[in-house]
C-alpha cells in the first residue's frame, strides 16, 4: 500500500518534470505528426483499392447491360453479330465478354498497414481462358515505391516508435546518478524499482497511449467502414498489439537502465538492440526463409507451360486448322432454336485452355504451398524478432497479409473452375446464350477468412510480446538488486 503511494508520488513528480522540460511534449507532438502522415498514406492506399473494386464492379454491370442490349438488337435484326463479339455465343461471353470480375474488398482496418496490398491485385478479370493468362497479373506500382516501402502506420510503429521510446528513457537512472540526485532520492523511503517503474509508467502511458489510440480515432473519423461493431474486435486487437510492442521496448529500456551503466552506454546498447531486432534479424530471417523454403523455379514453370501449350496445339491440330464458314454462310453467326454454331477453332481454344489448367494446376499449387510453408516458418521463427511479430500482426489485422491474398487467389481459382464448368456444355454442345442466362451467370462471392483465425493469431502475437516484456522486466528487477548507486 505504502509502495503504491510512493509510486504515485514518483509519477506525479516525474510528470511535472517532463512537462517542465518540454521533452515529453516534443516527442508526443512528433509522434502525432508522424501518425497523421502515416495514416494519410494508409488511407490513400485503401481508397485506391476501394476505387479499383468500385470501378470493376461498375464495368461489370455495364457489360451485362451492353450484352443484353446487343443481344436484343441482333435478335431484332438491327445489328449483325461479329465472329468474336456476339453475346449469344457462349465463347464470347465465357472468355471475357461477360466482364466478370473476382474482387476482394478492403476491410475497415485496411489503412493501418499497406502490407502486400501494393503488389498483389485485389481483382482479377475472369474468363474461361487458362489461369496462366490472368493469375500472374500484379498491380502497377512504381518500382521505387515498392523498393523503398511505404510510410504507413506499421512502419511507423515497428521502426520508429522504439526510437521515441529510447529518446525518453535511455537515461532514467543514469542521469540522476550523473547529476548526483540519485543518492538524494534514495535517502528517502523509496526503492530503485519503484523509482524506475514510476519513470517508465509516465512515459509509456503517454507514448503508447497516443500510438494506440490516436490512429483509431482517425480511423473512426475518416473511415466509416471501420465503425461497425464487427470491426471493434479488430481495432481492439490492433491497439493491444501496439501496446504490447511498445511495452516490449519500454521493458528493454527498463532492463538497460537497471544495468547501472552510463547514459552513453545505455543509448548505444539500446541502439544496438534496435539495429539487431528491427533491421538485421528480419532481413536475415527473410534470407533464411528463402534458403530453407525456396520458391519453386518460375523459369521451370514457364518452360513447362510452353511445353504443355505446344502439346495441346498438337493434340487439337485438326480443330485449329478448321476454317470459319460465316463468310460463305453469314447465318452461321446467328443463334437458332437455342443453338449456335461453334467454329472448330473456338472449340480447340477452349479445349486447349482446359487441358492447360488440368496439367499446370499441380505446378501452380507448388508455388502457393511454398509460400504457405514460408509463412509458417516465419510464424515459427518470428519470436526471434518482436519487430516481425508485430509487423505480420499489423498486416494481418489490416487484411493485407500474404495469407489473405493467398486465400483470395485460392477462391479465384475455384471460381474460375466453376465458371469454366458452366461453359463446358455450352461450348462443346453449341448451346446459345439467352437473355435469362446472361442475367444469371455464375457470380463471384468472397468468403472472408474466419475472424477467429485472424483474431486468434493477433491475440497470440500480443501474448508473445507480453511474455517477452515480462521476461525483460524480471531480468531488470534482478539486475536492480545489484545496482551501484555511487
Amino acid at each position, binding site marked *: 500500500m505504502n509502495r503504491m503511494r510512493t509510486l504515485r508520488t514518483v509519477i506525479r513528480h516525474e510528470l511535472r518534470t517532463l512537462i517542465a522540460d518540454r521533452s515529453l511534449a516534443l516527442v508526443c507532438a512528433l509522434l502525432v505528426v508522424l501518425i497523421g502522415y502515416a495514416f494519410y498514406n494508409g488511407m490513400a492506399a485503401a481508397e485506391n483499392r476501394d476505387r479499383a473494386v468500385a470501378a470493376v464492379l461498375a464495368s461489370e454491370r455495364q457489360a451485362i447491360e451492353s450484352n443484353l442490349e446487343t443481344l436484343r438488337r441482333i435478335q431484332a435484326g438491327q445489328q449483325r453479330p461479329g465472329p468474336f463479339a456476339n453475346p449469344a455465343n457462349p465463347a464470347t461471353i465465357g472468355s471475357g465478354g461477360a466482364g466478370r470480375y473476382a474482387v476482394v474488398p478492403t476491410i475497415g482496418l485496411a489503412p493501418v498497414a499497406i502490407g502486400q496490398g501494393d503488389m498483389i491485385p485485389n481483382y482479377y478479370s475472369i474468363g474461361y481462358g487458362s489461369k496462366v493468362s490472368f493469375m500472374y497479373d500484379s498491380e502497377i506500382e512504381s518500382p521505387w515505391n515498392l523498393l523503398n516501402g511505404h510510410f504507413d502506420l506499421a512502419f511507423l510503429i515497428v521502426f520508429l516508435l522504439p526510437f521515441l521510446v529510447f529518446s525518453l528513457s535511455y537515461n532514467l537512472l543514469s542521469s540522476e546518478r550523473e547529476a548526483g540526485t540519485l543518492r538524494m532520492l534514495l535517502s528517502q523511503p523509496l526503492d530503485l524499482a519503484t523509482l524506475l517503474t514510476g519513470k517508465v509508467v509516465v512515459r509509456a502511458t503517454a507514448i503508447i497511449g497516443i500510438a494506440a489510440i490516436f490512429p483509431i480515432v482517425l480511423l473512426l473519423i475518416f473511415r466509416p467502414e471501420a465503425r461497425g461493431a464487427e470491426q471493434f474486435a479488430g481495432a481492439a486487437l490492433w491497439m493491444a498489439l501496439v501496446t504490447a510492442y511498445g511495452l516490449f521496448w519500454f521493458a528493454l529500456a527498463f532492463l538497460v537502465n537497471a544495468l547501472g551503466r552510463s547514459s552513453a552506454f545505455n543509448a548505444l546498447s539500446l541502439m544496438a538492440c534496435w539495429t539487431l531486432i528491427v*533491421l538485421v534479424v528480419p532481413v536475415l530471417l527473410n534470407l533464411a526463409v528463402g534458403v530453407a523454403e525456396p520458391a519453386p523455379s518460375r523459369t521451370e514453370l514457364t518452360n513447362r507451360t510452353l511445353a504443355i501449350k505446344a502439346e495441346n496445339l498438337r493434340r487439337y491440330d485438326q480443330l485449329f486448322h478448321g476454317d470459319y464458314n460465316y463468310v460463305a454462310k453469314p447465318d452461321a453467326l446467328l443463334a437458332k432454336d437455342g443453338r449456335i454454331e461453334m467454329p472448330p477453332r473456338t472449340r480447340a481454344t477452349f479445349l486447349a485452355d482446359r487441358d492447360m489448367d488440368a496439367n499446370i494446376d499441380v505446378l501452380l499449387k507448388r508455388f502457393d504451398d511454398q*509460400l504457405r510453408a514460408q509463412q509458417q516458418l516465419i510464424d515459427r521463427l518470428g519470436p526471434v524478432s518482436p519487430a516481425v511479430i508485430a509487423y505480420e500482426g499489423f498486416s494481418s489485422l489490416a487484411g493485407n497479409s500474404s495469407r489473405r491474398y493467398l486465400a483470395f487467389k485460392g477462391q479465384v481459382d475455384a471460381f474460375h473452375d466453376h465458371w469454366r464448368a458452366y461453359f463446358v456444355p455450352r461450348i462443346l454442345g453449341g448451346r446459345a446464350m439467352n437473355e435469362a442466362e446472361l442475367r444469371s451467370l455464375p457470380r463471384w462471392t468472397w468468403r472472408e477468412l474466419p475472424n477467429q483465425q485472424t483474431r486468434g493469431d493477433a491475440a497470440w502475437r500480443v501474448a508473445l510480446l507480453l511474455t517477452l516484456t515480462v521476461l525483460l522486466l524480471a531480468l531488470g528487477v534482478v539486475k536492480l538488486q545489484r545496482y551501484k548507486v555511487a
Partner: protein
Amino acid sequence: MLRLIASKDLREFIRDGRLPWAGGLVVLLLVTAAAVGWFQQTAVQAERSAGQALDYQAWLNQGARHPHTAADQGMNVFKPEPPLAVFDTGVQPYVGSTIWLQSHSQGEVKFRPAQDATGLQRFGALTPAWVLQVLAPLLIIILGFNAFASEREGGTLRQLLSMGVPTRRLLWGKALALAASVTLLLLPGALLVGGLAVASAPAGAAVDIIVRLAALGLGYGLYLSAAIFLVLAVSAICRTSRVALFSLLAIWIVGVLIAPKGISDLAVALHPTPSRIDFAKAVRDEENATSREVWLKNFGVETRWDPRVPLSKWGIALRVTDHNGYRVYDRQFGALWDTFERQQRFQEWAGLAAPVIAVRSLSMALSGTDFSQHRDFSKAAERQRRIIQEVVSDDLIKNADPLGNRHFSYRANPSLWAKVPEFQYPLPRIGFALARHWPSVAVLAATFLLSVALALAVVSRRLSV
C-alpha cells in the same frame, strides 16, 4: 602528426570494442549477403539460359502448321541476370524477369520474385548494397559520434589546442581514422563481391565489370566520406557526446529510413502512376479508337474482324491490326515507363536532401538492376515479338490469303520458323548507365564537398573547448 592522431583514434575504436563488435557484424552480413546472392544468382542464370534455349528449340520444331497457331505458341524470353546483381538486386525483385512473346498484344514482364515472397521482404533484402547504404553510415556514427565530443569531455581537446595542434589537422586525422576503419571492414567484402562478379561475368565483359566496380567504389566512397565528415562536424558542434549521438541518430533515421519513403511518395504524387485498371482501359480505348479508323480505311468496316471481311484478307488484316497495335503500345507503355523514369529523375535530384537516394540509384544503375535497364530489356523483348509477328503475317499474306475461305487449312513449311532468329539480349554496357545516371554522381560529389566544407567551417570557427 596526421598519422599519430589517426592511430590514437583507431586504437581507441579497437580497445573499447566498437570496431570489433559493430564492425564484425557488418563484415559478417556483407559476406553472408554476397555468398547467398551469388549461389542464388548462379542457379537462376543457368536455368534461364537453358530455359530460353528450350523454348527456341520448341519454336523451331513446330512442324507444318498454320503460322497463326505458331504465334499462339510463341516463346518465352528471360532477362539475363547482370553479374553485379549479386551486389545490388535493385528493383529486380519488384519488376520480374520473364516475358511470354505471344500474338496480339505486348506482353508484360511477369513473375516478380517479391510475389513469391512473404511480407518479410518489406523489411529489406539483405544485399551487400543494403549493408553499405543503411548499416555503414550507422557504423560510422557509432565509431565517430564522440570524436570531438569525448576529447572535450575528457579535457584533452583543451590540451591539444593549447599545444598548437591546428584544428584542421585534427579533423583530417580523425577522418583518416574513420576512413581507415571503414575501409578495413568493407574492403574484404568488396573484394569478394568484385571477385565473384568478375568470375561469373560473360566472356568479354570482365573489363566492363571492373570499370563498373571502380565506379561503384567511387560512388560509395563519396557517400561514406560524406557521412564521415558530417559525423565529425556534428561531433564538433555538440557540447556532449550524448547530444552528438542523439543528433546523429536523428539525422540517420530521417535521412536513411524516412526520407527515401517520403521522397518516393512525393515523386508519385508529382508523377502519378496509373492503376492497372486505368492503364488497361487507356490501352483498350486507344486501340479501339485507332483500329476503327484503320479498318475503315483498309476494309471499309468499322469493327475489327467484321464478318464482311473475307478470310482471304485475314493475313493482311492481321498485319494492319498488329501495326496499329505497335503504335498504341509504343505510346501507352512509353508513357507509363516515362512516368516511372520521371519519378526516378525526381528522386535523383532529391538525393541532395538525402544522399542515400542518390547512392541507391547510382548503385542500381551500375549494377544493371535499375528501371532503365529493365525498360531496355522490355523493349528488346517486344522487338523480338514484332519480328515473330512480321514473319507470320508476311507468310500469311503470301500463302494463306490466296486460299480464300480455306485460310486456316494452310500449313507453313517448317523452314519458316527459322526465319525468326534466337533472342539475344546483350546486357547494356556501363555507358548506358552513366548516360542516364550522371546526376547521381554529381549529387554525391556535391554532398561530399558540402560535408567537407561544413566540417572545416565548424572546426575552424566553432570548435569550443
